[in-house]
């Protein structure tokens, strides 16, 4: 017979009133919640619009991303009490410890599931963003032809979130570049380190074929899996500013 583990940390039970904000999108947070009674609403709250993603009831869990990213990422959505509710609150530390102590094969299988979960979320968010873009008229007609021209290059790059304390430096391969954007090829494992959601700002360092360095601030526009290369993903970024000598160097490169 197997013994059940009974050394779980005591659970915290919190009561919320209808309308209370439980999790705020954009804030740091480690708690994982289970609904004991009542219902909550999960939604994305951008300045102009609120999109309800789901409604959760008794027995359902939210905040689980804190387990996957160890609380190092900000919350991806807000959660509000739809009615008075009672929530059980867990800290991910003991769950992570338990996971760490599992057999190598179990961790291999669960690890794959978790990674697939992250990648599917990214794929879905990107598909939705694309659908939204298709419905919005493009108003940026002022870009010149010279600026939109793209060049294929194959250069290693290092990128990190704009806030240096927010995450690791990761590697990628810049595959093409223009004055206003670039495409970077990365390992899918990169998504586990920090968020690659559209809108996220990155600091990117790379170099031109001549060896001259480029340093820029960029914004994530799109991300997709590479069908022909599983395990790799393609990031589409918009260049928001070219730092130091980069503007001159890239400008010269694009015209030659």
């Amino acid at each position, binding site marked *: 017979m197997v013994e*059940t583990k009974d050394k779980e940390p005591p659970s915290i039970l919190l009561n919320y009133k209808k309308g209370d904000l439980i999790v705020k999108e954009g804030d740091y947070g480690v708690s994982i919640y289970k609904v004991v009674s009542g219902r909550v609403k999960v939604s994305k709250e951008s300045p102009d619009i609120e999109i309800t993603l789901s409604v959760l009831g008794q027995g359902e869990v939210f905040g689980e991303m804190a387990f996957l990213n160890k609380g190092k990422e900000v919350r991806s959505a807000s959660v509000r009490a739809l009615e008075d509710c009672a929530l059980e609150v867990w800290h991910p530390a003991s769950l992570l410890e338990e996971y760490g102590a*599992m057999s190598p094969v179990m961790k291999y299988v669960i690890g794959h599931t978790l990674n697939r979960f992250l990648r599917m979320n990214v*794929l879905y968010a990107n598909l939705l963003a694309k659908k939204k873009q298709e419905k919005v008229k493009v108003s940026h007609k002022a870009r010149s032809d010279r600026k939109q021209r793209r060049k294929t290059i194959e250069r290693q790059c290092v990128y990190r979130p704009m806030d240096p304390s927010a995450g690791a430096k990761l590697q990628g391969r810049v595959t093409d570049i223009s004055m206003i954007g670039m495409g970077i090829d990365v390992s899918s494992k990169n998504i586990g380190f920090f968020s690659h959601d559209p809108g996220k700002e990155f600091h990117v360092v790379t170099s031109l074929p001549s060896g001259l360095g480029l340093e820029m601030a960029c914004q994530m526009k799109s991300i997709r*899996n590479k*069908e022909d290369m599983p395990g790799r993903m393609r990031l589409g970024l918009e260049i928001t500013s070219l730092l130091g000598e980069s503007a001159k160097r890239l400008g010269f490169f694009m015209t030659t």
Partner: protein
Amino acid sequence: MGASDVCFSYLATEVDYADQAVIYQEGSEGDWIYVVLRGQVKMKKATARGPVVIATLKEGDVFGELGFFDKVNRARTETIVADGPVHLGIFDIPSLDREIDSASPRFRILLRTIVYRLKETINKIGSVVAE
């Protein structure tokens, strides 16, 4: 941890499939967990516009685990088809079962939540792509 390190000790069996052979069909019930040892498979989702390939799985990739972790609904959420001849390993399900059963209730609830969310997302991707 590479596929070969994990697999030699923990596989119940290994099996070969020919090109285009269906390993399992979406909607069928099953809890076998597979790992690709040689070759690759395509993961397909049925949509209003016909089957859509949503992923290609290569050496070291695992599939079938959703049917294992979701004890309530064992229906496969995708169809897996061999892309060229493929050699697969199948994990020792009873031993994985024993290990999961001895995990804390909280861990099992967390895993169940992630599996449900993943299934939902896979289904949503199918419908968005089909639009």
